């Protein structure tokens, strides 16, 4: 009798932990997701610096303009506005690159994970509706945009789990910031 009670208790614990605990298993996904954003920045600043040379033939402005023909509504308007003002477009692309760097580092280390994941969602979905129509042999930009954006969304809702700086931060601070009537969870 006692044994039956014990096992039903275990089953209950198991189903509870299935609902709340498996965050820590997502560590590899979070790390690689961060790596993808971070290396976008590394490629521009270290591997191929001509991407950030305003006067180079194949800088990122060219890639950015190529979004234009089939980008989706608001993103198309933004790209169209910026490519007619190339210096402003350039500032935008530099800021975009540094946000990618910060989002990447924060996701890899699990620092302010929810805030970084929000950045990742905006970057990914922005790209998805900008160049999601590209990809010559398969529909890869669409696949990258959806998978990275939705993976970031999961971390936006769930946070980092145990293998993270946030886990350590939580010993000192719960990660909430109060702005007016909103309480925003950053970690």
């Amino acid at each position, binding site marked *: 009798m006692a044994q039956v009670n014990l096992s039903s208790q275990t089953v209950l614990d198991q189903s509870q932990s299935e609902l*709340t605990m498996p965050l820590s298993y997502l560590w590899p996904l979070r790390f690689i997701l961060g790596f993808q954003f971070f290396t976008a920045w590394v490629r521009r600043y270290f591997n191929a610096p001509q991407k950030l040379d305003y006067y180079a033939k194949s800088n990122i402005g060219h890639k950015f303009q*190529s979004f234009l023909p*089939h980008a989706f509504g608001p993103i198309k308007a933004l790209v169209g506005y910026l490519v007619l003002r*190339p210096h402003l*477009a350039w500032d935008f692309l530099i800021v975009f690159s540094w946000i990618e760097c910060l989002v990447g580092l924060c996701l890899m280390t699990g620092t302010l994970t929810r805030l970084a994941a929000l950045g990742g969602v905006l970057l990914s979905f922005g790209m998805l509706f900008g160049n999601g129509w590209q990809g*010559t042999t398969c529909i890869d930009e669409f696949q990258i*945009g959806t998978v990275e954006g939705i993976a970031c969304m999961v971390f936006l*809702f769930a946070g980092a789990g145990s293998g993270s700086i946030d886990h350590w931060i939580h010993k000192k601070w*719960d990660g*909430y910031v109060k702005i007016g009537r909103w309480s925003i969870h950053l970690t």
Partner: protein
Amino acid sequence: MTNRPIGPEAVKTPLEPSIVRRKSWVMLIIAVVVTLLAYQLEHHGLWGKLTNYSKTPQINLSGTHVSQRDLSLSLYRTGGPATYGSFVVQVTLKGVSGRRPWEVWGPKTLASLPSSALHNRYHFQQVKTGPWGLVVPLAAMARLTLPLSASADHKLKGAHRAEIIVQDVSGLAWTTVVPIR
């Protein structure tokens, strides 16, 4: 929202299963909506014919017009690989029903086009002259002014409309019919 405690003890409070379930549903709905919307918009994956705009070059000629003195040709490349050009080697001007062209601009003529006859709209991706015609990168938009010879000008006089054919080196061709001003 629920009244979660604020402060370090908030983190230690286990999540309510009902909240986890509700958040999962919200995430699933956002994921499905975003993915299907992008799939349909960008590739016509749900209905219509499946499309990949990046496969072969596509040049849009709308905005082109013909006057008695010249052909004002508008090129906007809307499709094909982002990494490589389309190569325009021939522009033909002809009557709508006639078989013989009124005027043909070949690769060498297009290659030696003066910069005053080539106006790009955008700064980054631009139509440029190459050794054999024009190099047209993805999303480049330009207006070319091609002067008509005296004989072509003469043939234009009786007609109301003209057909313009732009040919890529691969054999791809794009056509538009415009009224003569």
